[in-house]
């Protein structure tokens, strides 16, 4: 942050005799600036320049005329977006699914990390950790296939068990509530283990003396977890929460796309699948860009709001 203004302030050639404090500071910081440059270039080239493409949300984008040559359309695309009944459900679903994923998915990595932390046998802990990381590296195509096979009615293991218990199969994938449960559950199964890593790192930083002292004072395991472990990792939890807020408007494409089916489309059509269907398949680039922009703006507002709340508790990011 400090580097760029310093760099741009020197662009007019200053006379060498004049040695302003700015210039001296620049000299001191040259190694840092050099180290920072690739990062700056990366962000400008791959993050900021592509944002220019957002203008097509306000245009009638046409392949032939390109991003700049297409005609301006004003807010027409947004108007179209918000008058289409499908859009409203899509946005509602996106919000619902992502908030639920956060509420359900957020505590699991923390609980897992604390549980790992309490395991004393090193080999057991290591192998358990590896087992729980593993699903993270499977693609959603694989996990989706597994989930659908598991819950299908003719060949699924779950339904075979269910049939033995109740006498008939249950359409888990075609009921909105059970579909949502399966959706959230599969997300937790795949990502909780990997998400625990960051909390494990935070746990490693807690001073062991605190536990010893608590032990001497007669605190049990749960008291220790409550009064030492959790407060010790609170900053990380808050950080993850703020980062998570930025993603509230986005539901990852792969998972929903692999698991959704027409019967539950009332709750499973989300912004990312909408953009895929309308934009990439239907070539409606302007309207889907408008949708993407809407998603990003809401995300930005949420991040800022979350940070504002965190600031009250002296945990803010910036």
């Amino acid at each position, binding site marked *: 942050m400090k580097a760029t203004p310093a760099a741009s302030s020197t662009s007019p050639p200053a006379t060498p005799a004049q040695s302003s404090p700015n210039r001296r500071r620049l000299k001191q910081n040259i190694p840092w600036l050099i180290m920072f440059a690739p990062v700056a270039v990366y962000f400008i*080239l791959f993050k*900021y320049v592509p944002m220019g493409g957002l203008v097509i949300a306000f245009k009638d984008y046409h392949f032939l005329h390109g991003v700049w040559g297409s005609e301006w359309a004003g807010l027409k695309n947004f108007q179209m977006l918000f008058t289409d009944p499908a859009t409203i459900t899509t946005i509602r679903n996106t919000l619902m699914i992502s908030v639920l994923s956060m509420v359900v998915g957020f505590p699991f990595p923390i609980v897992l990390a604390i549980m790992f932390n309490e395991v004393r046998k090193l080999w057991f802990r290591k192998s358990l950790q590896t087992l729980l990381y593993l699903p993270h590296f499977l693609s959603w195509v694989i996990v989706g296939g597994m989930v659908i096979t598991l819950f299908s009615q003719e060949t699924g293991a779950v339904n075979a068990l269910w049939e033995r218990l109740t006498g008939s199969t249950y359409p888990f994938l075609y009921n909105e509530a059970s579909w949502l449960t399966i959706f959230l559950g599969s997300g937790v199964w795949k990502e909780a283990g990997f998400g625990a890593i960051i909390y494990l790192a935070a746990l490693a930083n807690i001073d062991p003396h605190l536990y010893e002292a608590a032990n001497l004072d007669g605190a049990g395991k749960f008291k220790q977890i409550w009064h030492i472990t959790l407060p010790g990792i609170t900053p990380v939890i808050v950080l993850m929460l703020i980062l998570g807020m930025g993603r509230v408007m986005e539901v990852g494409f792969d998972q929903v796309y692999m698991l959704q089916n*027409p019967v539950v489309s009332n709750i499973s059509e989300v912004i990312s699948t909408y953009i895929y269907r309308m934009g*990439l398949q239907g070539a*409606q680039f302007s309207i889907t860009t408008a949708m993407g922009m809407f998603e990003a703006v809401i995300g930005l507002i949420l991040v800022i709001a979350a940070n504002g709340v965190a600031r009250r508790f002296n945990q803010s990011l910036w």
Partner: protein
Amino acid sequence: MTTKQWKSRLALLLVGIMACVIFAACSSNGQNNEPATPTPGTNTPDNAAAEEPKERGSITVSVYDRGTVPAEEGTMDNNRWTKWINENGPVDVSFVSVPRWESQQKFNVMFASKSAPDLIMEYDTAYRNQLYNQQLIMPVDELIENSTNYKAMLEEYPALRKVTTKEDGKMYEFARVIGLQPNHALFIRADWLEALNIEVPQTTEELFEVAKAFKEQDPDGNGADDTYGMALSYISGMIVDYMHGSVFTMFEKQPWYPDANGELIHDWDRVQAAAEYKKRLFDAGLVDRDFLTDSKGEKAKQDFINGKLGIWGTSIGDFPAYETLKQNNPDARIQVIALPESEFGQFSPVLYNPVQSVAAVNVMAKNPQAIMEYVDFMVDPETKKVFDYGIEGEHHTVENGCPKLIETDEVKAQLSYKADLMMMFSTDFTNECADWWNYNESNATPLQLEYKDIRYDAVEAYVSQDRPNPAITSSEHMPLIPEDLQINQQNGFKAVEDILTRAIIGGTGYTVEQAIGDAKAAWNKSNGEKIDQWYADWYRDNKDSAFLMNDMYDLAQDVFFRP
């Protein structure tokens, strides 16, 4: 550091970033414009060169990639057949492979990045129409003026002109003639009918009873309850729709039919009847309860070729399925049956579009003349011969004046993947060596001969105006609705389809009648009335000039019928 300093720094930072963004944007703008300017420029040297003999043009052409090229043969865009085209054709062609089932996404991305191929090979008319609407393809009338083979073909089959002409009266596509043949067919296990002593079903009601018997009465006689009466996934489900005269399937959504006054009406009754029938099958447990996850019909196909499924809808061209079934169950006998009669009449399933547009020319193509040369080369019967049978001595020998394939695994592998390079070829109705209707003891296996009979049955059952195809025209010849309505149509039909699906598997909780009510509401909310009106207007204005179902029946060929 004071706040003031901070603020000025922040401002500077912002200015810096904006400057970078604008600079980068401008520079990329400059790049965007560049290719546009030299285009005419590059044309001039080409034209000049054309006067000198033997200057080969160079073009890019798309080719579908289905991932079926054997590793030792290379890739879809670089293999023995693409090399053959380059060695023997009039122009240098570099092929651009496009994933078959994601071709449109890929084309869209390529158009957006200005790297789309010169000749776009795409079966989907809706997509080509979209390209036309966006002015991304060029008219080919003038090119055809200078053409040889394609021009001759156009004179022989005027229908080609009709299907490739767009609203502005110019031709924008290259098409081929394949004749009116059945595409989808309804298969039934004749040996099961015999074993249970039941007749071929004539009505939808009878079909239901047969499916029930197939499910419950152990038709394969193995003592286990392991058979399905019928399938509902993919083509099987589409056939149930067509049975009820409903052209609202997972692929084709054109539920408009002319009424007695010749007006096009959106008919919900047929949709309802088809959905109710599916629901009955589902509730009675006669179909695979997971049919929804079987979106490409692979599970149903497995069931059928393993002898576990009695009534199956598939593409008539799927001879390998028949072959495998016979291998697994030598006693199995298959019959193609006419679609049973419903309260709306008796219909035929999807027919092959007899005149099919397959290619369009990118408006940014630098050398259209070379594209025409390539098209002429690819519709040449001599080229077709090579692609049908490979190269003499290498892939086939000539016996009785007809090529006979050399039957080794090597040859089989080398010939296995070329179909997508053959999109331009019309069917040669006079050729007496090729295609199923010319099979005889000397050039076909016994199984192929058996299947030839089945195909004749299919033609007799389906290519007849007594049992018409219910669609106003092939989905490939449907007009393209304006863009804003198109979005509504896409979303509206998706909502309707989802609601119906929910009713089919929803048990007693959600009846089809309720669903139709909800579907109508969803359709109207999505501007449905306006869309229906648009199609009605189009039909009123164009029913004489458009390529409709009647025109298709005119192209029926005698060779497909039993001699």
